[in-house]
């Protein structure tokens, strides 16, 4: 029916307004903020949440979390509990993260500051070089601004008034003039922000008598006037954030200008290098190299920070929620392969926490269970947890079982809660034991590494996932370390004892164990052997006892969060697959699976289907013919199905009379649709127009070139 054909464009145009209603009527259910999602919409792919009229007023009282009545009927109190639990735990983590990130910078800041103050005072000697500090920041660009602002603040704080700092980026400065103008204007602070060359510096704070100063805004002489006036300033620190991100010759030029003025302006240049020194080296000409005197600073290695993160956040005594092995592995993989960025790692942890408290109604169990006591539903839900069920099954399968205990758990709610509490204690114990065991492995590796340099040390972060699943117990690495202990010399024993003293608290189990060895009390070979066997035995026992799997804990589903796909999809979506799926299978996004057969494919996806079948170059005429054929054929089958036995004569007669609508597409209609479809494909980046001349013929053929490669 042609009517629908002509309607389509206008429908599309109006899409933005129509969308919410369409969505609510066809796809999902518009729900009130506090309304429930009932069981019948579970399989819907999307929901539109419409805040009700006076949502703003409500917002103050309500919480971002919603009631999860789908699984357990919750009261508002439960939601609040989950929300407060989440905010509390995330606050704790965030303060720790802040300090972690700042500490990582702290030592660098200090060294840079030392360098800045230690640079020689400028004097009128021809041999003075421009002092340059190379700050190796790593490839994680997003953290650079924070780092350099910190450096600038730190220096200004330490050297109140003595040092003037200026942070610039060369990325957005296209020429030397712009770069210098940035430096000058930030320091003098009086220049106008206009980018025009013509804008001259009319500085009020530079005494010029009654003359007007018409110097150009990139003239470094301006800075001399300013500097002469600033009595306290002894050094000017110019920080260039993106030294290796600048174009071609810009950085050498800037260095040259600062070098030329070095005897009048006490510059210290700090360059942020995101690549490595060898790469940066290739970008600086030798001539520039001769102008500078440099020192390099390594920002603390992020691998160390990762270990600290593990110690202080994931495996500390206040840990309430443990990251599961799968999730941690995937995060670590992403960190190593893709980001090398501690911030993204930590935000992923935060996301995991959020998901846990948002989506798991039983997560309130992590708090002292007051409110849960009243809710029978929660108790029932607790009993459905697989680990609890298998616990009960194991218990009952035993020969002489204490059926009383099981019966109590299954019938009495208070005893279940008490049991959960004891499980939680067991979990805390587990966490601290894991932490101790990992630290011990670390110490043992350190002690052994001095004797055999061939083995590569595996960090705690690498071992974490294996450790909490219990895979480490009896693994090659542990066996090797125990072997090492049995071969230790007296000096190594001392070394090991020293390392243990360094790494562990006085009250920890391992310290007590180390005290029980009585190192140094015995002399002689026989006693040494005895000592060694004693040590290896105790350590082996310790590791065996502590490297347990978290799955041994009943209710571990409540304490360990391990949803890999959730986090992967949130942080690294597969954009290509998504677009292709939408084009190939539009019903996935447009309607309910049961209605998929009835959905009329959008013309875009028809064009895309043909696109996928063709070669690299597509003749536009062929493409259109095929497109036309597909549409016509489709319409034919539809009419065949709808109208019973339409005869050709009838159709022709009706068509000629112009009374009944034509049942097939006109060529002009399909052409219009075709143009629309390919222009949309072009917009999506699938196609490019090309005109080619073939065989000396003057007629140009308009062809389309495929741009997107398959399977990437």
């Amino acid at each position, binding site marked *: 029916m042609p009517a629908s054909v002509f309607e389509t464009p206008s429908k599309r145009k109006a899409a933005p307004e129509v969308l919410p209603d369409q969505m609510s009527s066809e796809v999902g259910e518009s729900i009130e903020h506090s309304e429930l999602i009932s069981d019948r919409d579970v399989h819907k792919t999307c929901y539109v949440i419409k805040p009700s009229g006076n949502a703003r007023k409500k917002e103050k009282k309500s919480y971002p979390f919603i009631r999860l009545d789908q699984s357990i009927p919750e009261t508002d109190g439960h939601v609040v509990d989950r929300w407060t639990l989440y905010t509390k735990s995330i606050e704790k983590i965030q303060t720790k993260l802040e300090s972690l990130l700042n500490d990582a910078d702290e030592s660098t800041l200090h060294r840079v500051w030392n360098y800045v103050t230690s640079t020689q005072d400028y004097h009128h000697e021809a041999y003075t070089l421009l002092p340059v500090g190379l700050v190796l920041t790593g490839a994680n660009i997003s953290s650079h601004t924070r780092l350099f602002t910190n450096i600038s603040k730190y220096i200004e704080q330490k050297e109140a008034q003595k040092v003037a700092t200026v942070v610039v980026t060369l990325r957005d400065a296209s020429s030397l003039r712009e770069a210098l103008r940035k430096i000058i204007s930030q320091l003098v602070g009086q220049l106008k922000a206009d980018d025009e060359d013509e804008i001259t510096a009319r500085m009020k704070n530079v005494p010029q008598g009654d003359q007007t100063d*018409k110097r*150009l805004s990139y003239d470094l002489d301006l800075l001399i006037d300013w500097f002469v006036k600033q009595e306290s300033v002894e050094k000017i620190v110019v920080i260039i954030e993106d030294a290796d991100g600048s*174009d071609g010759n810009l950085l050498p030029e800037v260095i040259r200008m600062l070098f030329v003025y070095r005897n009048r302006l006490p510059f210290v240049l700090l360059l942020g290098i995101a*690549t490595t020194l*060898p790469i940066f080296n290739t970008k600086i000409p030798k001539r520039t190299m001769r102008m500078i005197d440099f020192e390099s600073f390594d920002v603390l290695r992020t691998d160390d920070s990762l270990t600290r993160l593990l110690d202080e956040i994931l495996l500390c005594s206040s840990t309430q929620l443990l990251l599961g092995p799968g999730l941690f592995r995937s995060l670590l993989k992403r960190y190593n392969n893709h980001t090398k960025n501690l911030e993204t790692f930590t935000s992923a942890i935060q996301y995991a926490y959020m998901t846990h408290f948002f989506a798991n109604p039983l997560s309130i169990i992590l708090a002292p269970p007051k409110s849960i006591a009243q809710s029978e539903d929660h108790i029932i839900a607790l009993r459905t947890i697989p680990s609890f069920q298998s616990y009960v099954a194991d218990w009952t399968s035993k020969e002489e079982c204490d059926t009383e205990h099981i019966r109590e758990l299954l019938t009495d709610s208070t005893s279940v809660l008490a049991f959960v509490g004891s499980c939680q204690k067991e979990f805390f114990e587990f966490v601290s034991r894991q932490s101790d065991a990992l630290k011990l492995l670390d110490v043992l590796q350190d002690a052994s590494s001095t004797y055999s340099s061939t083995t590569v040390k595996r960090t705690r972060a690498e071992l974490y996932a294996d450790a909490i699943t219990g895979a480490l117990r009896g693994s090659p690495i542990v066996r090797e370390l125990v072997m090492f202990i049995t071969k230790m010399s007296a000096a190594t024993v001392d070394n090991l004892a020293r390392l243990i003293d360094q790494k562990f608290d006085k009250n920890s189990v391992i310290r007590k164990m180390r005290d029980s060895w009585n190192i140094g009390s015995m002399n002689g070979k026989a006693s040494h052997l005895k000592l060694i066997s004693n040590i290896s035995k105790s350590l082996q026992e310790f590791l065996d006892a502590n490297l347990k799997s978290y799955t041994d804990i009943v209710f571990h589903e409540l304490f360990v969060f391990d949803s890999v796909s959730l986090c992967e999809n949130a942080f690294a979506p597969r954009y290509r697959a998504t677009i292709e799926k939408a084009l190939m299978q539009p019903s996935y996004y447009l309607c309910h699976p049961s209605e998929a057969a009835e959905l009329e494919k959008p013309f875009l996806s028809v064009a895309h289907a043909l696109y996928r079948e063709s070669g690299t170059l597509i003749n536009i005429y062929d493409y259109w013919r095929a497109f036309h054929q597909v549409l016509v054929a489709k319409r034919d089958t539809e009419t065949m199905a709808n109208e019973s036995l339409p005869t050709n004569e009838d159709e022709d007669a009706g068509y000629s009379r112009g009374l009944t609508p034509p049942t097939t597409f006109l060529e002009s209609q399909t052409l219009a649709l075709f143009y629309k479809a390919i222009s949309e494909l072009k917009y999506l980046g699938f196609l490019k127009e090309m005109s080619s001349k073939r065989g000396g013929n003057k007629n140009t053929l308009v062809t389309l070139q495929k741009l*997107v490669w398959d399977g990437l």
Partner: protein
Amino acid sequence: MTDLTNNRLQELTLEFPARYNQFDLLNSLLSKDKTTNPTAIALVGQTSSGKSCVLRRFLQEVQFSHTWLSCDECVTLRVLLQRILAALRAIGTQDPNNLDYSIMCHNSTLFVTQLNDTLRALALEEAHFVVLDRIDELGEPYESFYQLIIKIGNMLRYDGITFILVSSGSEPRSSVTTTFPHIYFPPYSKAESLAIVRKESPDSIRSMLGSTERKLSDLQLSSLWSSYTQVIIDTYFPLYGPDIQQLKAIVRRVFPTYAKPVSDGVVGILASNRNYHAFVKLYKINQPLLTSEEFVRNSFVSYVQGAGAAESAGHHDMPMYAKYLLCAAYLASYSKSRYDIRLFSRIRESRRRVRNTTKHKFKDKINSRNLAPSPFEYERLLAIFQCIVPDRIDSVTDIQTQVATLSTLKLITRVGIGGDSSGGSSIDILGSRTKWRVNVSWDIILQISRDIRFQIENYLID
């Protein structure tokens, strides 16, 4: 009439070895009398051949009224023109350092007019010299300005001003044939370089050495210094030729380390040059110093490694896939796309269809690594990337993020519309249409591929 007597010239030559002729020429060309001076003269010669300091010394000696302008301080010509005018206007005022910057000068034509005005106002009685030092290091192309200065005599209505152009670059071709005085400063020979480097007072040598436990007399110092400079010149002259400044910098940098055995008393004092024994001992101790490149500082890397921080190089690593992407970009730039199937496909059929390319080998003799990288499509980069990574990965957004990061770091650059520099173009930088080019040299790529244990040579046809 010349201002300096021949005796005085001889004395100056003692101060500046091998520059008698230049002093003589300056002396005979320039004078206080404003009518006899040329409007422009040029001092030309290689870098650090003593042009600026000879001129400075000369002007100081004859007490000519002059203005000294360093062109390398001027980012654009306009800054230079403005400074010339401001400096000229300040002549004769009470405070010559308080410059008046109330004039703007946009171009050379305006400059001539304003210069005329200024000269009229000044009404010079004696000749005034404007030195344009390092004219070749002006931030902008300076050729047309050079031309203007040479011919400015015809355009000025008031005399009394002489421009002295000091340039170490080659002169603009158009001005080579014009007749205006040139003074050529030939590069120093090895003996002359030695003489210049040696000319150092005992006090300054002592200050270079810093505080020492052992007191050295002036005589001891100077004998140590002369043997030391001989060694340095013998070592580095073949490398740095007559670049006196570079040689001096090296001399100063190495000296404290070199002289340490003497000041510590490990080696006996060199009473005279005849004390060969002590010299040989000192030389033997310092031999590594003279063979390593540490003190030349041509590179960040060797110096850093010399400081014992070699291990730090590996830690600030890029993420692993960024390295693979960079290798893929290199391969995409340096291998032709017609070899792609042969190199990257695992289908056996594609390998069978290898054409005999022996004929072409004689034609393409230039190693492609020495040529500029050729642009490639974004999709090709992704395809090669997928071929070389050890495990199959989906095209997640992280990959695109890394491409964007690499492009920010200028390790790969975008070619074509929008250019590399402006960046503000409306085209989506990760769109399939864009073309890219790798911006990293073979050495670095080799190092990176070793890091990830990827045999990049297997994928290159040389």
